[in-house]
């Protein structure tokens, strides 16, 4: 701390002052969007519902980021950091979804064998009957 020569006049860090009116408008818009999201969800849009909900949520996130978190007035690199993050998240989720949507059907042939066996055992328990022969599949 003693490094800075005392005759040099330091200037405080500059940052943008967001007008109060702007903050207030953003708050109202965000609340309205949240309510809109809830109303739309209750209107039952079936398949498109998730998509619409996500679009509204993303809009809210962008608005909050730009104004509440000053991203609009901030260094461009901070925006780049956020965008790269979103790209990586998209990548992660997309690949995982692509995979699970295409699971090899031969790996999961219908019901898991242990399940079938267990359910049979349960049925036997409910109605005490002769013991099933194939009882060594599980474990």
């Amino acid at each position, binding site marked *: 701390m003693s490094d800075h020569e005392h005759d040099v006049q330091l200037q405080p860090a500059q940052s943008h002052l967001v007008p109060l009116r702007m903050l207030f408008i953003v708050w109202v818009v965000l609340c309205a969007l949240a309510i809109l999201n809830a109303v739309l969800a209750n209107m039952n849009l079936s398949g498109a519902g998730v998509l619409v909900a996500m679009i509204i949520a993303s809009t809210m996130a962008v608005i909050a980021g730009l104004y509440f978190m000053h991203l609009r007035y901030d260094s461009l690199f901070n925006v780049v950091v956020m965008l790269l993050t979103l790209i990586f998240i998209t990548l992660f989720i997309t690949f995982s979804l692509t995979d699970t949507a*295409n699971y090899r059907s031969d790996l999961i042939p219908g019901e898991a064998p242990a399940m079938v066996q267990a359910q049979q055992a349960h049925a036997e328990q409910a109605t005490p009957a002769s013991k099933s022969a194939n009882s060594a599949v599980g474990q």
Partner: protein
Amino acid sequence: MSHATTATISTTEKKPVEHHYLNYPRTISSWLLTLDHKRIGIMYLTLGMLAFFVGGLMAEIIRTQLLVPKGLIFNGSTIQAQYTAFKHYNQVFTLHGIIMVFMVLVPIIPGAIGNFTLPLLLGAKDVAFPRLNLISFWLYVSGVILAIASMIFGAADTGWTFYTPYSITTDTYVVFMVSGIFLLGFSSIFTGLNFIVTIHKLRPPGMSWFRMPLFVWATYATSAIQVAATPVIGVTLLLLILERVMGIGIFNPALGGNPVLFQHFFWFYSHPAVYIMILPAMGIISEIIPVFSRKHIFGYEFIAFSSLAIALIGFFVWGHHLFVNGQSAELDAIFSFLTFLVAVPSGVKIFNWMATMYKGAIVLKTPMLYAISFIVLFTIGGLTGVVLGALATDVVLHDTYFVVGHFHYVMFGGTIIALIGAIHYWWPKMFGRMYSEFWGRIACVILFIGVNVTFYPQLIVGAYGMPRRYASYLPEYQPYMDLSTIGAYIQLVAFLIMAAYLLHSLFRGRKAPANPWGGATLEWTTPSPPSHDNFDTTPVVGDPYDYSNLVYDPALDGYIRVDREGSHDYASTIPMPEQQAGH
């Protein structure tokens, strides 16, 4: 300062101790609570070397076990006894993997070498957040302690990958181990974050992006991966802990969870993590090769951007770990194709290094020997990686010793060799002492032989079908397994020699000049070892790979900067080193 000190030293009596970062202040707490990036780097190095020693011990135990087909250390006459013994073997190789990956390979180059050199290479006084840096170190310590705790109570036997459902059902202390790695992950994130901000905001005037040494570029790419990938392993391990403690069920098939999802989560981090391990190593090689070739680096921009390209592509390839694990065929094909892409920037680097050496005045000092070893070993590792990235061959070779051989060629032949090279390269700057060049070269050659004798037979025996992680094997594999074990002992000899002469140099080594190798990067303009503040004046930034102004001064046994006309430029930023002890 220079003339005054030289005068006092030449009287050879009780010389006043110069203050540098190592000896001032001297108290224990001044080390443990230090905010100086150099001291934190040295602490990382010490602890990392200890971890490396323990992990290496595990490796020697594993190789000794595999000397005979039935197992030399862990075996038993009855089935029960054998089961217990082999479980211990599982614990040993798990510990070897976890210690080496999470405590040595991932943190040690950024933590030790990066922390020490990055601000010096940049010409900065410290990293951007010194306190965060210290927190990062102590998180590393706590992670290591938790892992050791699990070692005492009953170490995990899951392998370093913690695949569910076995990691949920095993009765070993997985939670301790995983919590330790969780902390190590945070340590890694904070280090990466710190370095990114440092590189962005703390460059002195004149240090433009394309004047940064290539190690800084590599560290930048590494840090980006650390920040972007490590949180995912954080949440994965958190879910695994909750899985074991609360039975949350997301990865547990017994509760309807999806174990393949765990593997996606795990490798979304752990594949980029191997680039966390290898990228800084490549940066080190990019520093050493031009210095000892006395020639400007070839294709600076290509090397710089290939680091970023590797970091980026590294995020697109994780699925090649899941080729035989139940991943869909569609994604298998995509990931196999993307995996080949990584070979391109890696190849760019290899060819640029070779082009740098071409027609250079190569000096085969110890660091250069390690750099050349790196190129050879990494190329073998990289090419076997392409074999594994190809879908059809991977189905055959997956989970065989071929994978073990490949991984060790890349990680040992790549990262560890580069790390040792870096320690030798910056040793004079870190501790102000020179080590024995003769023994350094001997150790390097022995190590190079040892690495190949250890890991090449593993590639062969893997192709013959020997599965990895087994505690015993068929008798026909014995020649290869024994050869591999002999290689491991040769490596041990090399490391013992290395430890001996490095420790000797700490106390008895010749005092190092400011610039023993003739490097043009900024850290060589500081005295060896540097003062607490690194640079007394803002350093003058030039081309980091321009050696035309550096001439060897036999009186100093080091290099000094001269101006174009050839007259000595004593007013330059190089302080005269204190020496003459050996002359």
